[in-house]
Every structure is written in structure tokens, then in C-alpha cells.
């Protein structure tokens, strides 16, 4: 029999234990928990704005100052064994594309859609505008 000290994947309290740990850390580096959404953390020092969005073990970090961003990332990867995935491209099945010139940011779920099609073995199916092709019935009647 093993007595558990740390939470393991699959435990009911696993996400909570992790979240509490993370929460404590963010508070220690002076981030404020957003009141409307408790998994968004905000910090503002002068002109530097910093947002962190937590989605269980995925983090999005947004900042208008590159140095500050790097510093926080460094801290995170030291404290927890975190992997830096660089610029955001994929998040929760969404693909993120940026166009800096026009200040645009596109999100799409193409990959997710393709996976659904694959799952239902419909990748090779022909796209159709109407759920039931009205022509099919007509042809029969004509004959």
C-alpha cells in the first residue's frame, strides 16, 4: 500500500491541488486574480501590462514588454517544470494566426474539424450545402 504525498493524475482533487499551487505562486509574484474570471491573472507596473490565462496545465502569457515576458517565463520554468512553447499558435484546439501589420488576430478550428471528420470517417465525403440533397428525390420522380 502506498501513502500518497503528492497528487497523481486521475485523482479527484488533482486539478484543485495544482490550481492552488499555481495560485499561490502568482500571488507571490504580485499578480492579481481577476474578479470576473478567477483563472485570469493581471499585473500592471507603469506601462507594462501583463495577463496570464490559466487553463489547467496550459498557460497563455500576454505582455506588451518583451523583457518582462521573458523574465516571468524564466521564473515559471524554474519554479515548475514548464515547457516554453514560444508564440501562441495552438490553444485548446484553436489555431491562432497573427497579422501584425493590420493588427489582426484570427482564430480558427480547422484542425479540430478535420479530426471530427476523421473520427466519423467522413474526410473523403463531398461537401454539400443542404443536409439532404433535394435533387436526389426529384430524379427518382422524373423516372
Amino acid at each position, binding site marked *: 500500500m502506498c501513502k*500518497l504525498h503528492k497528487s497523481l493524475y486521475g485523482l479527484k482533487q488533482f486539478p484543485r491541488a495544482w490550481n492552488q499551487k499555481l495560485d499561490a505562486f502568482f500571488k507571490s509574484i504580485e499578480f492579481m486574480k481577476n474578479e470576473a474570471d478567477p483563472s485570469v491573472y493581471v499585473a500592471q507596473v507603469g506601462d507594462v501590462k501583463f495577463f496570464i490565462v490559466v487553463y*489547467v496545465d496550459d498557460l497563455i502569457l500576454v505582455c506588451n514588454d518583451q523583457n518582462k515576458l521573458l523574465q516571468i517565463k524564466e521564473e515559471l520554468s524554474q519554479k515548475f517544470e514548464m515547457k516554453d512553447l514560444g508564440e501562441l499558435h495552438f490553444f485548446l484546439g484553436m489555431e491562432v494566426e497573427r497579422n501584425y501589420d493590420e493588427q489582426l488576430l484570427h482564430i480558427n478550428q480547422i484542425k479540430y474539424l478535420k479530426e471530427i471528420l476523421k473520427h466519423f470517417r467522413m474526410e*473523403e465525403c463531398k461537401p454539400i450545402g443542404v443536409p439532404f440533397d433535394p435533387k436526389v428525390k426529384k430524379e427518382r420522380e422524373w423516372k
Partner: protein
Amino acid sequence: MAHIANSLDEGAMFWHERLGHLNMASLKELDPMVDGMNLKEVSLHHVCEGCIEGKHQRTPFPKDGATRASQLLEIVHNHVCGPMRTTLHGGARYFLTFIDNFSRKTHVYFLKAKREVFEKFKQYKGLVENKIRHKIKVLRSNNGREYVSKKFDAFLAECGIQRQTSAPYSPQQNGVAEHANRTIMECAKSMILAQGLDIEFWGEAVNTTMYIKNRCPTKVLNSKTPQEAWSGRKHDVFHLRVFGCKTFAHVPDEKRTKLESKSMPCVFLGYYEGTKAYRLMCVETKKIIKSRNVVFIEGSKEIGGVLHPKKIENGVVHEIVTEEVEGEEPLAFNQDTPLNEATIKGVQNESMPSFSSKEKFVVSNDNPSHEPSQHVPRERLQMHQREWPWDWRIATKEMEHATIAFLEEPQNIEEALTYENSREWECTMQEEYNSLVANNTWTLVPFLIGRKHVSCKWVFKIKQDANGDVEHYKARLLVRGFTQTFKVDYNETFAPVAKFTSIHCILELTALENMEIHQMDMKTTFFNGELEEEIYM
């Protein structure tokens, strides 16, 4: 220095040992050839333990010791062959043979995984017992895990079927099935290679081989073919043709216009049991066709190169039946039946030799397994097959990878250790285990009677890169949280996750203010959470 022996026999024993455990007959022979041995008496039947340990041989198998059944279905042999390197397009990598000992009539089933054996046996039993007015009495197989499951045992007991398994590591005792597999494989290989067909046709070849072998003589039957012994009727072989040869199939009037060709080139792939029609594959469309209006060009071999199932561009393939003939679906490609997720109970510690015996933990896997509905009506299944463009021919690249990945991820620890790449799995498991121990995740405590504990299991994943190649193997020990009890093992589970609106909001801000947006994820999340409750595993 000579050793003085007290008794005669002992003297011989010493010489036996001095001469490197020379056998007694040679010892006796040597005595007159040399001086100084002076053996009095040599017993040829002396037992020396060293000799047994060093020279023990396998007990020979009796040449004519095989039992012969006296009626149909008295003894049924079966054997699984595979996994094959090439996965069929229905996902099958194994084939399963059932051979009736009396008639040597063979049936072949194709499997995605070995656990389907039980399901197929039930199908086979239903099929043959209905056809032949006898019941299966004995099922003979090897000791494979796929045969020895509780469910299978219970089913056999219920039907009054005796199970005979061969002794461990003695496949010779299931000779009929083993030999049949070899014959089938050799025959199938020859047919494919001779016609220059792609190896992906092995399923078709195996199926056809079975059909042919049932109509060829075997040693044990006198002047009868298995088919005749089985059905009691003499059959003709008038309709047999060379596998893989070029053929032309007549295009029915309804399917063509006046000026279109009346025939289409096909490759011959086999027969239909129970239907007087040939199984063909259209060269152009790569569709499987069932037709009886066929012209064969048996000498032709150039067809093999043309046909390459991978080259299918438009993978939507249906089985089109050019003749309205009713018949059973080919065995090989009825792969749409639900997988029988037979879970193996109570995995033993012995199966994980790499973990030190002091730190034993039982990995149990007693899922409350949901029996998939076993009685899917036949009509529905067939409709299903027609509707979905999922025939064995769909072969886009992604699909192939998907199938392979699906196949090679073991479902439980036993499978992981028996799969081809069991070494990799064992390695990753060991790594994971080491890191758990190193992080002080648990301490071992003596078993507390009456204290509830949660169970755990291993899960396995193959991580692939964008090209679908294997990046690395991943094994993870999971706690099975659903075995926890509220207020005993846990109190609070709530953990907030970001709302999508806030994610969108922040993405908008990022775009507007041209901010940097980066992402991080957790490598080993689980190390971090400390537990408030006392939990045992």
C-alpha cells in the same frame, strides 16, 4: 593423486565426473582402451544430477500420438497468426483459423486485435453448429492469453465445450493448427508474389487460400477433400481460376450508356462462399466488385504493378454488386463489428519484472467493462457497411497512420509487455516510475485493514510528429479517481478554468495593442500539487 573409491559404482561415478560427465556407455568403452581406470561394474542407468541439469532435453513428441476425431466438430483446432506488418484497410493485422479435426475444413477470420478471438469463436460456433448437426466438443488451442480469459472460460463451460491447451512453449501439441497456418501463409505468399501483387492483398490471398485449401486433398483424409468431408457432397473445381490474374467484368446495362465500354478490366481476388460469383477489384476505380459475368485471362501478370491500393485518389469506395445475388459477406472485411473490449483482470506483479520486489504495487484493471451489444442485427450491420465509405480500400495517408497508431497503443500493461515494442514500453514505464519515486510521490506503508484505497493503472500513448512518425513513447501511471469516495478520499475538487469569453477578450486586446502572446505548458503537472487528504493507493 588417485581418489580411492569405496564401492564399485562410486568408482565409475568418479570417472564419469573426471571425464567431464562422459556418458556411461562411452565410459565402459574407454576402459579397455586405456590403463589405470580398472572399472569393475558400470551401471548404464545411473542418475547424475549434474548431467540432468546440463543435458536435459525436451521430451519427444509422439509421431503418431495425435488424436483423430471420429466425427465432425469433435475437435476444433484454432490458432491466431500475426501480427502482420501490413495492416489491412479494415484495420486487421491478424487472422484466426478454425480447423475441424475430422474434415480439416478451415475457416478464417480476420482480427484487428487478439482480444477479438472470443467474439469470432462465438460467430464460428453459431455458423458451424447450425450448418452441421453436431456440436463442438473440444476446442484445442495454444496457451495464448486471448483464449484463457474468464469470459471465454465461462462461455465454454456453459456450452459444455472442453478446452485443451498445449503445454507452455510446446506449439507442437497444436500441430494441426500450426501447420495449417504455415500452409496458408506459404500459399498466400506464393500467390501474391507470383502475380507481383502488392503485399497489402494478403487478406484477400489468405481468404482465397482458405477457399482453395478446403478443396485440396490432405493426408489424413482418404480420397476426399475437406469440403466433401464437411458437407458430404462432392464438389467441382471447374470455377477455380488463378489468383490475381487479369479479368474483364461485364458492366450491367443499367450502369452504362450506349457508347460506354461493355466490360471493365479487373483483377481476380477470390470467391464467395455461398455465392456463385467472383470477387474482383476494378483496376480503374479500385472498387471491389462481385460479379459472375467474368472473362479471365489467366496467363497475364502485368496487372500486379498497375494495382496499388495506396494510389487511390478518391477513397470513397463501396462494394458494388453488379449482380443481384444474395450471399454472405466476405469474412475478411466485416470489420465493422464493435471491438470487444475484454479487459484482463488482476494483472500480476510478476509481469513487471523490472520493478523491485520490495515496492510491489498491484496494478489492477478491473474496469466495469461495458459489454458492447453483441446482437447487432445483421441487416443493420450490412446497411452500416453500405452507408459508410469505410471499406478496406480507403487508403489516404492520414488514415493509414491513424489506423496504425490506434493499433499499436496497448490498452493495458499486459498488452504493453507483449507487443512488438515491449522494450520501449518497459523503458518508458521504468522512467515514469523512477521519476515518481524520485519526487517522493508516495511512501510505502503496511497494508491497513479496513482502509479504503484507490486503484491505479498504466496508460500508454504514442506521440507522433506532424508527419505521423513516432516521436516518443509515453507511459503514465494514473490513479483511478472514480474509485475514490466523497468525504473520505476527497472533499473539494473545484478548480477554475478560464472562460472562453475571457480568452477571446485577451486575444482581442493582444491584437489591438500589438502585445506579445506566448504559451507555456506543464511537463509534469502532477508533481506540484500537495495533498490535503490522506490517500492510499
